[in-house]
């Protein structure tokens, strides 16, 4: 596994260096003051350096690193989601429980590989018990709206995100001890697809995909990004249990889900009247702005691998 990891790190380093150099050349040639797109591009690339560095460090701590990192990502994402949606004073204990009980318990289930409870704890137990607690508090004002927002918040920020470290619990024959590479594959392909869609959209984008939801998404960006990230998936087949063809198919599905995740996230933001979820990551917005695609891709990727590749 050390061999594959070295190749990935060198590859990411080369890609990011190329990006930084390109942005620097573009900025040097562009008329001053720089356009907001160029300033944002440099900010985004700088943030990528930090994110890749953090991921790499977490990677070296293996199962510990991944579980803790994604629990923290869930914390930041949940905080953004709950901040944006409506809640009332009587929701205090339910909100506290989401941060203080649901996140730790869900990640404990990941840690102990208790699959049976991991898949139903939030969609069954939290789904039923949280509105019961809200009802017991006796405050019925905008009840359905508050309860739905809480369900969505933990499904998106905790349940879906926790499927990334849960990849470590899968038992793929012939791939023992190398599950970290499944996480690397998923993240590189999905985040790579976001970047590729952005690049294809900026270079060739003409026809808007869904002007009512997200003005920045174009057909050209989507198709270019999906084709390129499927090729990227095939290229990365050597770190997975998949054949190159399988890898490109899996990558295609994950990235298509990622695209839909971004679309749904945009719809929620638009409905709530904001542009970004938060300000945690300079140039990108909040944690959910960066992870919306991963959120939709992770559970599907997890179940595809589990259904077709595990015993």
């Amino acid at each position, binding site marked *: 596994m050390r061999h594959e990891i070295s190749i990935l790190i060198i590859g990411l380093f080369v890609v990011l260096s190329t990006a930084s150099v390109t942005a620097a050349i573009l900025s040097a040639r562009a008329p001053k003051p720089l356009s907001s797109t160029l300033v944002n591009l440099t900010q985004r690339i700088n943030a990528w350096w930090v994110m890749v560095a953090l991921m790499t460090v977490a990677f070296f701590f293996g199962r510990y690193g991944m579980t803790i990192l994604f629990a923290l990502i869930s*914390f930041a994402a949940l*905080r*953004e989601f*709950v*901040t944006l949606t*409506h*809640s*009332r*004073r009587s929701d*205090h204990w339910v*909100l*506290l429980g989401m*941060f*203080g009980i649901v996140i730790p318990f869900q990640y404990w289930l990941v840690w102990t590989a208790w699959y049976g409870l991991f898949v139903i704890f939030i969609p069954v137990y939290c789904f039923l018990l949280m509105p019961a607690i809200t009802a017991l508090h006796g405050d019925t004002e905008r009840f359905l709206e508050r309860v739905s927002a809480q369900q969505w918040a933990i499904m998106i920020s905790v349940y879906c995100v926790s499927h990334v470290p849960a990849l470590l619990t899968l038992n793929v024959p012939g791939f023992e001890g190398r599950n970290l590479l499944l996480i690397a594959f998923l993240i590189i392909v999905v985040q790579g697809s976001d970047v590729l869609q952005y690049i294809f959209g900026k270079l060739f984008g003409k026809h808007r995909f869904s002007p009512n939801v997200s003005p920045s998404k174009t057909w050209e960006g989507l198709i270019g990004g999906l084709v390129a990230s499927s090729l990227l998936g095939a290229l990365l087949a050597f770190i997975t249990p998949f054949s190159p063809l399988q890898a490109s198919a899996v990558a295609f599905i994950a990235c298509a889900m990622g695209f839909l995740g971004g679309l749904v996230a945009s719809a929620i933001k638009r409905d709530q*009247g904001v542009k970004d979820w*938060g*300000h*945690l990551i300079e140039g990108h917005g909040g944690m959910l702005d960066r992870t919306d695609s991963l959120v939709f891709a992770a559970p599907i990727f997890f179940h595809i691998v589990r259904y077709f590749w595990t015993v």
Partner: protein
Amino acid sequence: MSKLSLRTYTLLQTVTSVGLSAMAWAVTGVRPIWSGSEPSDRQRIYFANHTSHGDFILLSACLSEAERAKTHAIAAAEYWGKSRLRRFIAEDMLSSVLISRTWTSEAEHPISIMLSVLDQGHSLIIFPEGTRNTSDELLPFRSGLYNLSMARPDIELIPCWIENMSRVLPKGQFLPVPLLCRVVFGAPVAVAPGEERRAFLQRARAELLALNPRPDRDD
């Protein structure tokens, strides 16, 4: 106070203030929005909406460490002076200044206490609603803001809108829910020549309300 205990005392306050600001950031990711004023070492009176014990911690977390050391929150003696522990937390750890709503002697007069702090060159954080607000509307302002401004017209009055704190730590709760918060610092407000007390207080209240970045929300 002896030299050693004074040092311990300053150390306690510095550690508390840095620790609380770090905690405020970890829980609420608090960030200042300077909209009409800029960070400055000028002497100021910050006035803010008040829904939670966390309010002034959040506000002071937005100031530099040097500013924080010379900025004191005004708190109610009726609450914070109730037990020795509360008084220790309020006065010794948070270096706030306690005033009584039911003062008897001239020396206990809230305005003279606040003026004596200002005359040491320090800044103040005050909550002109007078109490932690549990309603959805900003309460009418008490007179202190006007009286302070008339007595020390050179000191800037900065309105500060503290966002979301009523959801993070509502009155009566002791565990905070981590939600993102912002503090919006507005342009200084001053008493216009000949402006009446009540008119000024209403205007100051309107200036503060206008800073709410999400007035459409009722929570």
